């Protein structure tokens, strides 16, 4: 109730609309949006550049006084907006940045779209460049940036061309190293496009901010063009080095465009502080692709092998996560099988199996991926004039981005990839290619054996000590580790009963149930709806996990949090079984910021029961959104113990394990 009060919503500069509501103005909301009838408000609210920037950007001085008045007494009529009721005021605070050009990137996006409606590639490419400069990255890397901006700001548009010419001269010398990387990666086309672009540059009007951005962009183009001319003579090796640097700085970056930007950022540094900059970058987690960031998604799409069509009606809160129409990709991919030159068939096969859901579960997916990589490494040969370490890392990266397109990586896979890449990067230089390949393959084997298979055995050994005769053990979903624990305890002759709790739509519990019953365990099967009923007779809850995060939060199949909370309320100990290689140093407080969306159709339809498919033709209705989350986050308060290959530890000790053994895990 409290947060709904108008006073609070007015004070709050960032409006996060929580809940499920339509992206277009919903009928009952129409009266609350009189200020911006033309644009659809939630989209502008959720646009990442507008909303997720630091609050420093938000309050314009003129408006701050308004909020002060509102703070002083929100019942008092506000002189600036007399006709507006109190609740839309918050919308007006959102609108201000756009109007007052506090949000340059958005403004620019609009400008570009209006000015070059035909040149689509240019439109998609440019906002990214400028946004990055707006976010301060570029400005910090170019020391003269601030002054330069100011200068351009004073210039009128007649002189703009001259300035760009002059400034391009100054920047060329700095950026010249960049060009090989760019020309190699993006091909000549983009640069050529940019090359001939200045001719059809239109005179700029109205806004100074637009002029600024425009000038900056043109100077960059000129610099690139000049650099390209230089690079045609220059050595090719430097390009390889530059791209290699970029990759090392951001190893798991999915998009090649981002790599370019990284090379811009790193190469523009002088040699001295490049190292420290790289280190700093390593510390900062690289941003995940946010799927409500339209321009980046567009770019990512262009490179994508798997053509995914995005689902129409997505839940507002989860727009930053990818959601595609399911069932459309497979035929396309199959038809492409012989065209996909760079993709190794083993990787391709694994990717397709992820896509269809053949392989699921953290361990299975991780093992399948590692084995595919093993195959790929076996068949790998270093191209001429390249080094194995760098080229293979690039190869693996491309495989990984293909796998991400098929299905977002699990955290276990992410850790395994990190391991593999660090092994490649740390290969001794004097090894021959075949030796290096053999070493890598045996490393992967060791990882699978020690970190996954052996770890499971240790977990089973520990967990079995917590099962007593007469226990009733509850599990949720299907976890391979938990299954092994039950089977082993049964082999030891312990007498216990298992309650398998399951949920739609995957019904993975049935598979587990089948295997347990076949082995002669006595089982009870129920759905999650009945968990609060069944819990009072349960003595232990065993859960699997996709990952355990640094604050002890357990990231697992959706529904796990519910089971853990019910168990906690009934004072039943909750034991989470998770191999240490799945631990992650990230901290997550909710299930929103990072998650995976499944096929929404599966929750709308019940297969084989036509008579209750009430939502048959509704899935494309505008004001219906379906949310099929795959994971959720269980707070550490509800977890009694985490059983891992380092023994049984409380959730508060996860950071210790991450801290002490992360290094060892990477080096194995």
């Amino acid at each position, binding site marked *: 109730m409290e947060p709904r009060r108008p006073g609070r919503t007015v004070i709050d500069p960032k409006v996060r609309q929580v809940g499920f509501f339509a992206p277009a103005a919903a009928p009952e909301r129409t009266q609350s949006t009189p200020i911006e009838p033309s644009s659809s408000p939630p989209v502008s609210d959720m646009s990442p550049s507008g909303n997720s920037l630091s609050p420093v950007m938000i309050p314009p001085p003129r408006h701050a006084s308004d909020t002060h008045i509102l703070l002083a007494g929100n019942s008092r009529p506000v002189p600036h907006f007399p006709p507006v009721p109190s609740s839309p005021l918050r919308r007006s605070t959102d609108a201000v940045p756009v109007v007052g050009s506090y949000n340059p990137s958005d403004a620019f996006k609009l400008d570009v779209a209006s000015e070059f409606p035909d040149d689509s590639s240019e439109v998609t490419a440019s906002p990214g460049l400028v946004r990055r400069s707006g976010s301060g990255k570029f400005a910090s890397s170019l020391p003269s940036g601030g002054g330069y901006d100011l200068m351009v700001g004073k210039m009128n548009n007649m002189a703009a061309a001259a300035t760009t010419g002059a400034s391009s001269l100054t920047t060329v010398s700095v950026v010249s190293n960049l060009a090989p990387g760019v020309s190699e990666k993006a091909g000549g086309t983009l640069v050529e496009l940019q090359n001939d672009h200045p001719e059809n540059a239109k005179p700029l009007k109205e806004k100074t901010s637009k002029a600024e951005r425009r000038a900056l962009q043109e100077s960059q183009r000129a610099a690139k063009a000049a650099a390209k001319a230089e690079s045609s003579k220059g050595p090719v090796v430097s390009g390889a080095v530059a791209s290699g640097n970029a990759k090392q700085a951001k190893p798991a970056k999915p998009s090649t465009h981002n790599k370019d930007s990284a090379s811009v950022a790193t190469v523009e540094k002088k040699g001295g502080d490049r190292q420290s900059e790289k280190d700093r970058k390593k510390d900062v987690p690289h941003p995940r692709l946010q799927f409500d960031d339209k321009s980046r998604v567009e770019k990512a799409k262009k490179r994508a092998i798997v053509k995914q069509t995005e689902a129409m009606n997505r839940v507002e809160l989860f727009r930053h996560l990818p959601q595609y129409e399911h069932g459309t990709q497979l035929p396309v991919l199959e038809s492409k099988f012989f065209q996909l030159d760079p993709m190794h068939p083993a990787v391709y096969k694994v990717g397709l199996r992820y896509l269809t859901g053949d392989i699921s579960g953290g361990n299975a997916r991780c093992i399948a991926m590692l084995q595919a990589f093993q195959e790929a490494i076996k068949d790998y040969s270093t191209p001429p004039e390249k080094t194995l370490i760098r080229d293979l890392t690039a190869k693996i990266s491309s495989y990984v981005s293909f796998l991400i397109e098929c299905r977002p990586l699990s955290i276990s896979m992410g850790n395994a990839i990190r391991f593999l890449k660090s092994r490649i990067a740390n290969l001794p230089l004097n090894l021959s290619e075949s030796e290096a390949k053999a070493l890598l393959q045996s490393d992967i084997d060791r990882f699978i054996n020690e970190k996954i298979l052996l770890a499971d055995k240790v977990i089973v050994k520990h967990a079995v000590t*917590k099962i007593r005769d007469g226990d009733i053990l509850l599990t949720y979903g299907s976890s391979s580790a938990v299954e092994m624990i039950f089977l082993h305890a049964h082999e030891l002759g312990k007498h216990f009963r298992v309650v398998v709790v399951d949920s739609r739509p995957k019904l993975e519990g049935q598979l587990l149930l089948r295997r347990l019953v076949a082995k002669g365990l006595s089982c009870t099967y129920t759905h999650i709806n009945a968990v609060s009923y069944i819990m009072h007779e349960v003595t232990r809850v065993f859960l699997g996990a996709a990952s355990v995060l640094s604050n002890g939060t357990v990231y697992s199949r959706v529904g796990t949090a519910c089971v853990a909370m019910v168990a906690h309320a009934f004072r039943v100990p909750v034991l989470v079984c998770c191999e240490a290689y799945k631990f992650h140093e990230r901290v997550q407080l909710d299930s929103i910021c990072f998650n995976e969306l499944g096929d929404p159709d599966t929750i709308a339809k019940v297969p084989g029961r036509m008579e209750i498919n009430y939502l048959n033709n509704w899935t494309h209705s505008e004001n219906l959104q379906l949310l099929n989350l795959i994971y959720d986050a269980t707070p550490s308060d509800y977890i009694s113990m985490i059983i891992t290959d380092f*023994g049984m*530890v409380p959730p508060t000790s996860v950071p*210790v394990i991450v801290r002490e053994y992360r290094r060892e895990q990477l080096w194995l």
Partner: protein
Amino acid sequence: MSEVSSFQNPNPNPKISAYYQTRAAHHGVVTSDWLAQAHAAVGIGPDSDDFSTAAGAEPSSVGKGFSVIDEFNNWRKQPDLAEAVAAIRALASVIRSSNATTMMELEIELKKASDSLKSWDTTSISLTAGCDLFIRYVTRTSALEYEDFNSAKSRLIERAEKFGEISYKARRIIAMVSQEFIFDGCTILVHGFSRVVLEVLKTAAQNRKLFRVFCTEGRPDRTGLRFSNEMAKLDVPVKLLIDSAVAYSMDEVDMVFVGADGVVESGGVINMMGTYQIALVAHSMNKPVYVAAESYKFARLYPLDQKDMAPALLPIDFGVPIPSKVEVERSARDYTPPQYLTLLFTDLGVLTPSVVSDELIQLYL
């Protein structure tokens, strides 16, 4: 063969945990039950003695010239020696008498000895923890560090000898670090007889702090009576409560001080029966609960609930005969979960319960 079988059922008197036998002997508490059982123990005793002398007589091929358990029991009789220290001394004598020639051999021998010690009394946590700690130390010491095997061996023995000192020092350190928490005019509730807590309060009294102590009676072995005796000797105002009066007098109490039989991985403690309910009462009245424990009591155990550990049994004297149909709960200790503890005073410093696991991980992995 006989050797193995005697190790499997080594405790001659299964009705009372060996740990509490020692404690009763140390504390001079004699109950009628205890006397009867002591008699019974004597009846069985000679057997095991026979065996150990027999084993000692022939220089066996295993290299075990004597019984580690006897050695342990000898050490244990010294009242000021902690159980873990006795265990380590016993293991040191294993090293001394062993005729192993390699480090690996010695390790295996030690492992066997510690296993038999542990299985001799599964209820004693500090015994288990002490054995584990020493084995850990041995495996971390490689003979390569020293010029030859013999010097490594003597180094290990030296270390084991020192351990008693270390344990004594640990108590001093704990007494020092906990002084800041005792303020003038405070009332401290103490449960059980803990040498560490005694040391803490002794130091506080020597530092001329003015405080009052409430002692619970500590049924069934009346440890509270003994503790109040000690307090009276120090001229500290002390009041005895029956165990069920804890909640009644909790509003007068400023802090609760308890020792620990063992500190487990979750950060909770296993201690004398009644600690859990005192902690619960204190928690609900927002009074801090402080645990004083040496770091060698940290054990790699993780009980999930009260019944999740080997029960240590204790005879209970009700004063009147109990009909045979009536069942008696004879467990001597309980487990207090970490959320009811405020701080742990250890020789590693003042720790929150969650740090225990961190220390254990660093110690054992």
